[in-house]
């Protein structure tokens, strides 16, 4: 049986304390930044703890108008053997190719896909839809109403999340990565409603992210939200928790998930 997936999120940013170093950070509402570690070191730790996949996001890339920094991904890829999704600043099919040949198995695209709908189609035709992850950041407006935000959560597109997800699928995305800006780093739980809406509308896998603070939240994301995967950044960084402990707790709730290695 296909298992649900636990995906740690590794967000990279230039350090404010350690000059010239790209560090891992957690964020709160896409805003407040806390430096928590070294990207390669954390990737190796997650490999040892048998995370199902990793997502690397370069938070500065879009803002600085450049492509994701691949140095750390390449180094990490030497010692980690699980799927890696990479994103941040991806704008063209060439960007896809570059990342895929530098350690990425999947590439996530966000703002650029909103601006250029051909990107999803072209990338998916060239590399296969399974390499193309459409990343959607959103905020809740009111019950049942969710809007897509772009440019690292700074521009409101006023588009409906489910509608964009559906179109993304139609255009060629192989997977959706949904991130709640409101709940990012809040530890208050996943937005089940939005997750459920998207999951029941599209027929491609959905990864939900934003808000995990307890093991229970993962369970809710899978059970009530119906997500295929839950992605967490803050959760593993500030508690005596790790993917191995977490998946045991998820399994105990009756959800099919990998155990041990």
């Amino acid at each position: 049986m296909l298992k649900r997936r636990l995906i740690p999120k590794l967000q990279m940013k230039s350090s404010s304390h350690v000059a010239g170093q790209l560090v891992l950070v957690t964020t709160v509402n896409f805003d407040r930044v806390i430096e928590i570690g070294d990207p390669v070191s954390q990737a190796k730790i997650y490999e040892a703890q048998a995370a199902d996949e990793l997502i690397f996001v370069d938070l500065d890339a879009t803002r600085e108008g450049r492509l994701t920094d691949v140095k750390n991904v390449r180094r990490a890829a030497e010692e980690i053997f699980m799927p890696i999704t990479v994103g941040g600043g991806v704008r063209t099919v060439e960007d896809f190719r570059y990342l895929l040949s530098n350690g990425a198995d999947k590439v996530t695209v966000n703002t650029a896909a909103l601006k250029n709908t051909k990107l999803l189609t072209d990338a998916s035709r060239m590399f296969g839809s399974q390499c193309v992850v459409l990343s959607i950041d959103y905020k809740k407006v009111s019950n049942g109403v969710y809007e897509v935000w772009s440019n690292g959560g700074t521009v409101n597109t006023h588009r409906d999340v489910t509608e964009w997800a559906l179109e993304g699928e139609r255009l060629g995305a192989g997977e959706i990565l949904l991130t709640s800006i409101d709940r990012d780093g809040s530890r208050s739980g996943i937005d089940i409603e939005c997750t459920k809406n998207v999951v029941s509308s599209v027929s491609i896998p959905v990864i939900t992210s934003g808000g995990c603070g307890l093991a229970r939240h993962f369970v809710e994301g899978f059970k009530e939200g119906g997500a295929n995967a839950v992605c967490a950044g803050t959760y593993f960084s500030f508690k005596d928790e790790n993917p191995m402990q977490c998946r045991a707790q998820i399994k105990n709730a009756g959800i099919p998930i990998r155990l041990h290695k």
Partner: protein
Amino acid sequence: MIKIIDYGMGNLLSVKNALEMVGADVEICSRPDDLNDAVRLVLPGVGAFRDCIGNLQQRGFVPVLNDLVLGKKIPIMGICLGMQVMAKKGFEQGECDGLGWFDAEVRRLQTINPSHRVPQIGWNTIEYKNNITLFNGLPEHPDFYFVHSYQVICKEADEIVAICEYDGPVTAAIYRDNIFATQFHPEKSQDYGLQILKNFIRWDPYRNA
């Protein structure tokens, strides 16, 4: 020296890193001539069937591979699309001929349950034939990472040596003589994946299965 075939498609770096992690000497080869002194071969692949066979043909790999694999019986391992292209025919974006090393067809995954989405992306448990030494050291129900929309259906059921369950049995690995191939990605399947690669670098198709 293990040679990985670079025909412009596939996550070659991961395969190389994984093989090196288990102690192999590995080289990535983008020219068919460079394959001639290979002790073992690896055919990876990510993308579409048509592009894959097209690239292999354009770059002159097909006759060299046929000679090395079918003629000289060099052990070869195919991964994902690399496995699919070993079939006779593929049906992705229309009908297309493959390498024909297996009497098999590559067809789109059929799922009934709406929760079983296509592509299959994620970790799934395999059932495997445990008389195949390539599966040595694995527990009874290991999980591997799959990411695919098509599967290989062999006419000879015996050639299917592992399956996974995804709304019905889905081919996970095939094997014949000196040719072994997995639908899942061993280089992405952590310790069990590395175990299979370790077994591959020690595999002697003529002494053991």
